[in-house]
């Protein structure tokens, strides 16, 4: 069942906040958009299409998202960069259990200190969004990137 205009607006708001937290921070608030038992996977299209289970980022709980954020902030060495998410074609379908299956396109542009902007990643989100205590949260988020090849390093989540 498709969403009514109000539900669609709420869903788009979730994706707007999602992009904002990853691009402008605070990054440590990003895990709060997920349920406690969430799944977050970043998968090359190649693996997805062949049913190969490897994800380049595999988080199986909000705790793993927290650990990923802390690693980005405290342990990984990387050149400073800016990211800018463009999330479009957000289409939700209501499920019988009240959750929403969502398909959306994403494009993330990366800006390194001495370079022109470039496309870091482009692909699809295949998500399940649920409502908990009046908030829409990601229960599942699959980031399927089209390019197979990644330009050097993915530091921040997509």
């Amino acid at each position, binding site marked *: 069942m498709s969403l009514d205009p109000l539900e669609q607006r709420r869903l788009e708001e979730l994706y707007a906040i999602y992009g904002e937290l990853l691009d402008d921070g605070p990054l440590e608030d990003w895990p709060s958009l997920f349920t406690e038992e969430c799944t977050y996977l970043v998968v090359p299209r190649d693996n997805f299409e062949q049913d*190969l289970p*490897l994800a380049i980022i595999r988080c199986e709980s909000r705790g793993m998202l927290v*650990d990923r954020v802390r690693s980005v902030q405290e342990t990984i060495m990387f050149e400073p960069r800016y990211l800018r998410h463009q999330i479009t074609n957000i289409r939700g379908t209501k499920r019988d259990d009240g959750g929403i299956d969502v398909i959306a396109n994403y494009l993330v542009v990366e800006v390194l200190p001495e370079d022109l902007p470039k496309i870091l990643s482009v692909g699809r989100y295949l998500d399940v969004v649920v409502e908990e205590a009046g908030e829409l949260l990601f229960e599942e988020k699959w980031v399927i990137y089209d390019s197979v090849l990644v330009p*050097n390093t993915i530091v921040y989540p997509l």
Partner: protein
Amino acid sequence: MKQETPVVWPSAGVSEVPYRIYSDPSIFEQEMMRIFEGESWSYVGLAAEIPEAGDYLVTMIGRRSVVITRGPDGAVHGFANRCAHRGVKLCRQHRGNARFFVCPYHQWSYDARGNLRGVPFIKGVKGKGGMPEDFDRASHDLPKLAVTERNGVIFASFAEPPPFESYLGETNLRYFDRVFDGRQLSLLGYSRQLIPGNWKLMFENIKDPYHASLLHVFLVTFGLFRADQESQVQMDDTGGHALLISRRGEQKKSDATSDIANLREDFVLSDKRLLDPVKEFPDDATVVMQTIWPNLIVQQQSNTLALRQIRPRSPGAFELAWTFFGYADDDEAMTTRRLRQANLMSSAGLVSADDSEVIKLAQDGVDQYPDHVGVVQMGGRGTENENHMVTETAVRAFYTHYRRVMGL
């Protein structure tokens, strides 16, 4: 005829490395010819990727695209991925199953061995055209590769290198067989990244345990690799291949970690399932990083197993193609463990991100100062095996072999 190169190696030998070898196009051309198209075994894939007759995969040896196939008889073959007619790339998929390989341009077709089987209009149409009378189809087969397989891992060459076993040498073969012990492998998936650096920087990185305990705060924080652990660095007789062998330690400060300003002793994982390593090999080593000349890194870090194939593209860029695997007899818990630990590796790896980032910064630096030389003197100036991690001996051994092959 030996081509002149613009590099004169410093008189100090391999304890110094001229930066020009990372950026000079003529050096790169020589490397492709002498190293990747020369007497070397390049890793090209796993038998588990092409299990059935007719299966094929497309991969790279140096800059050259090649096709690896399993023929109707079950044997593995390899040939250049370009039509003998006008040079068109034959295979456009990464992998698949095909009885014949048909060029899209004029539909010349080849079998799994790369033999030319069909040329449309070879006799002409209505008596007109066609190939000359003396056209010999058999002399237009695709350039074939030498192929060898050991315990499910396939290597290929444009030349005729010595048998793989003697190529690798006794110690390196023993450790190769430690991971590839004859059990059926199971493919977990791929990850590919384009790193803006010279391909040799990747090899140097894996042959250099000195950086591992300093750059990789995540590894050190969780005790997965530390300078104070019992370790070994071992090379083959040529110096081209190397092994870094070490074991896990604790998450606490010691002499070895006091040099790391930002060691996070207080970093406790919110979800400990990320790092839940179990012993799975007979010996006590928990990390073995093997570098096999000229294009392969075999990674065993705890329970994450991967092959990293180096595919040079230009002096300033290479592709790193990761293939993650386990064993067909892994239970579900082990597969999940491997997949979780893969978070540390590849293009978004909590550990390997440090490496791809630092290689980019290294290239930025050496590009701009080609007349300068780098210092490789940690642990002395020799190329002996060592029983500690505070050494660049395997980097010096690598360049000893490199200079010999390159005539530098």
